[in-house]
């Protein structure tokens, strides 16, 4: 299969701002699907609401643009009704770990067979750049003009608190690794969560003084390294996979 088979071309260009990380993650997902050679008839993508949540409508497969925070339960329903389908959830941090956090807890606990791709730009991008549960401590946003007073939610901790788990952290800069872990997540039977470190230039970066998306992309290059080996949890600034299958 060609990655071009997985895109709804008549909907291009996307609504994403110039240089937004989501486009690169969307493209790497299409590359991963092409590598796996999955026929469109065996695939479904579900998104919630947000800029990242737009993705469901751009994949050339049957898809659902669910209500805010509800991508995971809708995806679980699809999987249970038709277990033959590979069901992918592609959505934002605010959608999946903010308003949808409770669904994440329980789908993870029950190890439901879904691949979740979470675009973590640390912000509610679509609504103007409000602080999210993933906003780094001290970061200035629209609703935390003096810097966020809270530590961000530990997504890795939530997922890996389940006995059986599969968690990956990837970044928009490290594209080869990103593509590989998306592929592994889709292949894993069970709940697979990919946290993709991303950025929002227009509603987050500009407020912090960044001039362009690629300037923010560079911070991912310097801020994140691939972890050597597969032992234990990922440290801050480390990318890789943490899993336990029995």
């Amino acid at each position, binding site marked *: *299969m060609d990655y*071009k*088979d*997985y*895109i*709804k*071309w*008549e909907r*291009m*260009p*996307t609504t*994403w*701002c*110039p*240089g*937004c*990380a*989501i*486009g*690169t993650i*969307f*493209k*790497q997902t299409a590359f991963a699907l092409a590598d796996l050679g999955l*026929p*469109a*008839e065996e695939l479904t993508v579900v998104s919630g609401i947000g800029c990242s949540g737009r993705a469901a409508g751009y994949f*050339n497969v049957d898809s659902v643009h669910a209500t805010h925070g509800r991508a995971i339960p809708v995806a679980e329903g699809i999987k249970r009704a038709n277990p033959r389908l590979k069901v992918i959830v592609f959505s934002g941090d605010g959608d999946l770990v903010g308003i949808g956090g409770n669904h994440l807890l329980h789908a993870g606990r029950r190890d439901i067979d879904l691949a979740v791709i979470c675009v973590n730009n640390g912000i509610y991008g679509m609504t103007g750049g409000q602080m999210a549960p993933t906003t780094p401590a001290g970061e200035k946003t629209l609703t935390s003009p003096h810097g966020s007073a809270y530590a961000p939610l530990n997504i890795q901790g939530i997922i890996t608190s389940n006995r059986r788990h599969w968690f990956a952290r990837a970044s928009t800069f490290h*594209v080869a690794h990103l593509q590989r872990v998306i592929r592994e997540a889709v292949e894993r039977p069970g709940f697979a969560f990919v946290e993709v470190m991303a950025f929002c230039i227009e509603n987050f970066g500009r407020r912090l003084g960044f001039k*362009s*998306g*690629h300037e923010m*992309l560079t911070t991912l290059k310097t801020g994140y390294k691939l972890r050597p080996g597969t032992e234990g949890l990922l440290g801050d600034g480390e990318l890789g996979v943490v899993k336990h299958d029995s």
Partner: protein
Amino acid sequence: MDPPGHRGTEMPKPSKPIDAHIAWTADYCKHCSTCITICPVKNLEFKDDEMTSLGKCTQCLLCMKYCPDFAIEVEAKKK
């Protein structure tokens, strides 16, 4: 019936070759300059809003991998 995979959607808008290996699609490009910055040999440049190649492309494919908008395609090296 539609061929498998396409389901009746159009294929990409026509792209324009900007050198022997690179094609650029004006209809998709948002002028973010990610490709220009990511290119390790500084091969890409905008001239009056048109993408141009300086003829130094090594076919590393990085611009293609990072472009968030499917606006630049590079032919892979022949093995």
